[in-house]
């Protein structure tokens, strides 16, 4: 440790006031580098370092009076190695010494990829149904358990506590209706139309389909899809009508493509064919996909008005209730006639009340025609 004393500043001066340090503790300084400015009677003087070294201690604060010959700086003489931070930026943490682990032999290269025990979708389904994968034999590639394998197992699995698992179409209904209820801002407007003047044996379903076409023409906004993620809607040039049907246990809505361009006879023939296919469980999934608007003639079973569930991305469903007898005043006389109630449920996120009413009015007007 070297101590540096305030040198003789000349002119017989015995002391000086410390004005400002130019270096810090820990700095490495070289000979002639200014260490401190001191004020004498005559001037402010920079005091240079007598040697190279590292500052260990600065003795004195600005304002102190230092006597000539008194110690002002202490140097320490560290080797270079101790000071080497070993980096040019930041600080490198020093890692504690650790026991070297023996090298583990890498596992030998196996097949390109291992077969899946079960696909993630099958696995998720099994979990949902509470079925253990170990109880299932997989029929997929390499013995993978498929969703079908899981469902087959589910079919045979008793619930034990009185509950019966929903499967197939019922299951799909539970899922779809829940989704519809959460997403759709449902509103319903209803009205009725007098149809007493219709010819006998009028095909009510086909007339209703024509009414939907008329409604769509008057108000295309109801023949559209809504993409809520993008906040966008897509108008459809064609009307692919979903026709709700109750067959056996389930609710099906096969799609009649481009109904506006088809004849009544053609439509009726398609409906009949579909009914048969569905009853025989022969319908293709594509037949149920992508309706632009749906019609439910629930009145065939009963009921007058209903708010029906809209399955996104559709924005509207027209429901027709049971035709009922009603009275109509004509020229002061009471006449008995028939009325057909209509309920239009629409997604108010996308369709305005005015648009819905326009649609409905056009549908009613179409139905009001004799043929």
């Amino acid at each position: 440790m070297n101590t540096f004393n305030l040198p003789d500043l000349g002119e017989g001066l015995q002391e000086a006031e410390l004005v400002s340090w130019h270096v810090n503790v820990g700095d490495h300084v070289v000979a002639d580098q200014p260490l401190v400015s001191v004020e004498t009677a005559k001037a402010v003087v920079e005091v240079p370092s007598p040697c190279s070294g590292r500052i260990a201690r600065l003795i004195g604060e600005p304002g102190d009076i230092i006597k000539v010959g008194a110690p002002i700086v202490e140097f320490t003489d560290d080797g270079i190695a101790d000071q080497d931070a070993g980096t040019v930026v930041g600080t490198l943490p020093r890692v504690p010494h650790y026991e070297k682990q023996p090298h583990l032999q890498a596992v030998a290269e196996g097949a390109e990829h291992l077969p899946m025990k079960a696909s993630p979708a099958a696995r998720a389904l099994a979990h949902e149904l509470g079925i253990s994968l170990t109880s299932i034999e997989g029929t997929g590639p390499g013995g993978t358990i498929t969703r079908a394998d899981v469902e087959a197992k589910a079919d045979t699995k008793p619930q034990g506590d009185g509950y019966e698992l929903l499967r197939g179409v019922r299951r799909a209904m539970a899922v779809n209706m829940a989704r519809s209820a959460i997403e759709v801002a449902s509103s319903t407007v209803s009205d009725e139309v007098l149809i007493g003047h219709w010819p006998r044996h009028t095909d009510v379903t086909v007339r209703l389909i024509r009414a939907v076409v008329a409604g769509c023409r008057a108000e295309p906004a109801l023949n559209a899809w809504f993409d809520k993620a993008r906040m966008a809607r897509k108008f459809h040039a064609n009307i692919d009508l979903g026709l709700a049907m109750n067959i056996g246990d389930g609710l099906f809505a096969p799609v009649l493509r481009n109904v506006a361009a088809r004849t009544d006879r053609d439509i009726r023939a398609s409906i009949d064919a579909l009914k048969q296919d569905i009853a025989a469980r022969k319908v293709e999934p594509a037949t149920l996909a992508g309706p632009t608007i749906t019609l439910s003639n629930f009145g065939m079973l009963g009921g007058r008005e209903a708010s029906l569930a809209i399955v996104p991305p559709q924005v509207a469903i027209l429901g027709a209730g049971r035709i009922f007898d009603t009275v109509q005043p004509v020229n002061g006389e009471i006449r008995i006639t028939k009325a057909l109630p209509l309920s239009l449920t629409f997604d108010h996120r996308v369709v305005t009340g005015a648009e819905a009413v326009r649609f409905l009015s056009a549908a009613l007007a179409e139905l009001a025609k004799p043929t």
Partner: protein
Amino acid sequence: MSELNLVQAIGTALRRAMTEDARVLLLGEDVGLNGGVFRASDGLYKSFGDGRVLDTPLAEAGIVGISIGLAVQGFRPVAEIQFAGFAYTCIDQLLNHASRMRARTRGRFTCPMVVRTPAGGGIHAVEHHSESPEAIFAHIPGLKVVTPSSPQRAYGLLLSAIRDPDPVIFLEPTRLYRAAREAVSDDGVGLPLDRCNILRSGRDVTLVSWGAMLIETLEAAERLASDNIDAEVIDVTTLKPLDSTTIVDSVARTGRLVIVHEAPMTCGVGAEIAARVASRGLGSLLAPIERVTGFDTMMPYPRTEAFYMPGVDRVLAAVRRTMGYT
């Protein structure tokens, strides 16, 4: 509306951008008098002069570097790097400066610039001219990476890129430059830079791709249709920021994912897409995710280039593997 190919659509977008915003500059090698080696900027020098279209010395890093200075000063430079293979030298300027200028100055400086470059192979070019560097740029925070697959989309995407307040790397698939023409509307409408485009709806498998590989991907979808396999085709379009929602939603409906890209497999953008689908949509997967990509090799010289490029057959094979899982 004119029938334009992709490079003409690019030129139309450049002209539109330069007309509507006096801050837009075009700079690069041979972009002025020569109209660009691919004629992307044909006619622009004549229309706008050397105050707006700058022919630069041969210095890619410098081109991007001065673009940064121009952008910070309020211009909207569109820098052309003649080939993606020459953009590697710009990575320092892009990664160390353009991408982080806004963040490190807390918005005091911003970098609204576009780097356009022809990328991808299949054009029988000499070495270094068939690079697919999208993953390198997509990895860098603060950049956007866009690649069009059709003339109309190229027009709309480039307009949005130029209008974007942040630096955008715009990779133009060289193989598509003159591949097909379509009616392109010069309506000034920009396309969003954070959205995938679904080019084909389907139920059975989701095919995800971008750039020139959409040719093979769409062709594969056509061939699959005749085998009654209904493929959904998604053009990612903007690789960064990545719209994984569209892809995850699609896989939720189909249960099968095949990603097709020309760039080498390891650490390609396909890996990122696969990771996001595995993370957010694992439960919907029926089959392992497939990637049909370039090999982890250099793009070979032209005589064997065709063996490297992922062809329709490799895509079909991958799809068939996924269809084996129900």
